[in-house]
């Protein structure tokens, strides 16, 4: 058994567990677990950009939020309250509350920006935008950052400022985005007439299969030629450049992939939790994602994914009891300090070390057996 066998086994065990969970959980817990799996997807996105591209993005929430809001807008327009405003086109309730007294009650012109909502009457448009907008943001930001050769902390500061900027804009445009309250009271996600009840097994499988597909595709991507080049750029940008690779292009591409995954996670989150909120773009949430990846193992896609799932699962089950709500935060903070200090490669790093030991011991055994055999042979020959 070699190291890569063990790795494949880890993936298989993870995938089987995720697929088998509905047998053990009731609807309430299925819904919750689906959310944790979505966080796992965010872990994958962070690990891809941080572990493999060397870009510490402190604004991952920007992409998650954009994805969530885009599909959220479509689902908001499809909700019964929006449909039953007594107008030709559906109008979100918060737009009615904010409408000027003499405004035309129609999606085109109830307020100055509401026409932007018109295409979102189609859910397909919302779906496409939920991936396209984050990618567009990432491309715009990434192509400026990377072509200017900005690196390290400065990228983190820029992404951090961007996510806060976006949060402010969303909060400030109450009439257009629902402001602080976000988008609530959403319709169920519908495909060809089938409604995805957030508390059903189907929705769970939608999320679980999406996660598995994302996980495997990302895995393939980082083992591909471009993935390897990306890692070489992370390790020594100048050398990669002198070898003729367009470092900025690779970095921008993977930044966009990471954004697409986050946007996808955002749209799944809206489907399972039935709301989109500006808290998705809080600094705390973006840093929490980084924490997940760090604890799970930044340099391991699966590790970061499991880290995200485990921490959020532990966190919410612990905070069931009132006494632990606050102390859980403290424990998390302490764990985090300890992980950074003593296990820089996270849980995955530890697992990696154990695997290595295991493989080495097996090799030792094999070698000894062969040696013994050889000795016996020579002895036999001598006799």
């Amino acid at each position, binding site marked *: 058994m070699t190291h890569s066998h063990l790795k494949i086994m880890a993936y298989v065990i993870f995938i089987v567990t995720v697929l088998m969970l509905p047998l053990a959980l009731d609807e309430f817990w299925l819904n919750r677990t689906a959310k944790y799996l979505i966080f796992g997807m965010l872990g994958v996105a962070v690990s891809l950009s941080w572990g493999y591209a060397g870009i510490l993005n402190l604004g991952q929430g920007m992409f998650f939020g954009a994805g969530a809001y885009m599909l959220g807008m479509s689902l908001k327009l499809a909700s019964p309250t929006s449909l039953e405003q007594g107008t030709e086109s559906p109008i979100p309730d918060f737009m009615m509350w904010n409408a000027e007294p003499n405004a035309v009650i129609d999606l085109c012109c109830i307020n100055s920006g509401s026409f932007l909502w018109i295409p979102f009457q189609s859910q397909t448009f919302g779906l496409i935008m939920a991936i396209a907008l984050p990618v567009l943001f990432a491309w715009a930001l990434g192509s400026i950052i990377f072509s*200017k*050769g*900005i690196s390290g902390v*400065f990228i*983190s500061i820029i992404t951090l400022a961007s996510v806060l*900027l976006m949060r402010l804009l969303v909060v400030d445009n109450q009439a257009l985005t629902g402001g602080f309250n976000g988008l609530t009271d959403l319709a169920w996600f519908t495909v060809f007439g089938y409604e995805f009840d957030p508390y059903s097994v189907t929705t769970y499988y939608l999320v679980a299969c999406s996660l598995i597909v994302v996980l495997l595709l990302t895995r393939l991507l980082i083992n591909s030629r471009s993935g390897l080049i990306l890692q070489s750029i992370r390790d020594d940008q100048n050398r990669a450049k002198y070898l003729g690779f367009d470092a900025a292009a690779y970095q921008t591409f993977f930044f966009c992939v990471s954004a697409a995954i986050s946007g996808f996670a955002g749209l799944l989150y809206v489907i399972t939790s039935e709301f989109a909120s500006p808290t998705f773009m809080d600094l705390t949430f973006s840093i929490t994602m980084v924490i997940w990846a760090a604890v799970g193992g930044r340099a391991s896609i699966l590790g970061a994914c499991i880290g995200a799932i485990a921490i959020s699962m532990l966190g919410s089950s612990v905070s069931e009891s009132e006494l632990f709500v606050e102390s859980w935060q403290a424990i998390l903070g302490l764990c*985090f300090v300890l992980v*950074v200090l003593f296990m820089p490669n996270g849980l995955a790093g530890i697992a990696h070390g154990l695997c290595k030991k295991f493989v080495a011991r097996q090799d030792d055994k094999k070698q000894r057996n062969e040696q013994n055999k050889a000795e016996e042979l020579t002895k036999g020959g001598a006799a």
Partner: protein
Amino acid sequence: MLDTVFIGLSLGSVLLLVALGLSIVYGSMGVINMAHGELVMIGAYTAVLSQIYLDINLFAAIPLAFVICAGLGLLIEKLVIRRLYNRLFDTLLATWGVAILLQQAIRLEFGLSFFGIHVDGLGPGLQSVTVPKVLSEPIMLGDFVLQPYRTFIILISIVLAAFTWFLMYRTRIGQQVRAIMRNKEMAAACGIDVKKINALTFAYGSGLAGVAGVMMSGFKTVMPDMGSAMVVDGFLVVVVGGVGSLVGSIVASGVLGQLTSFVAFFSNDIIARAVVFAVVICIIVWRPRGLFNYKGR
């Protein structure tokens, strides 16, 4: 107009108070201290607690907060930061953990709330500090209303900036700090005790955060999570000004303060913050090393 300039000046000096400590720590040690905002918060709580239990006013709380936060900083440096030199991102993450710990320590009243003991002035709620009378009554200068507390903040930040300048450029220790900033290995080779100087630098930066906290407590509500927004602002100032540049931090906080005040005057506070973020992003893209940055390193 004069009012807006004055408000901008006081916003800028608040930024400078927070950024000063960050700038020194980041510039000389290469440590991104996300717990800086929490040290500011501890400083503010020092003011609250000293008012309740020691019955001393805001002025007396300033040195007290400096000492307490510097001590805390020393502890954080010994336990965490010291192990993370040359691992820039890891300092960011570890100090974020420290920040959570400090916040929860205040929320949980150092763990006493588990035993049902409540300490006045701690806990998750909001606290406030009474400002001495000298600082709370506005002074009329013709048409212009002089807010004494804002003036006081501006004065304190000027004094601290001047003192820091003196420390950095006119004392032996400051010379050593600047040597470490330029080249740590060379400095060590010249016989500078880098570990000791770094610990002192971090303690001094933390102490400045404590003073900033006392000043904040006079015009903001004091609560456990007041620090997290501040550390972001502080970093924007540091990065825009140029890492490790004292002049840069002063100019950047002045510019960002005025910008906030003027945009807020013409629209609202939220837009003002948004504009500041946008301008900061543009400046970093335009000059990644900041407005003021010495060559070399």
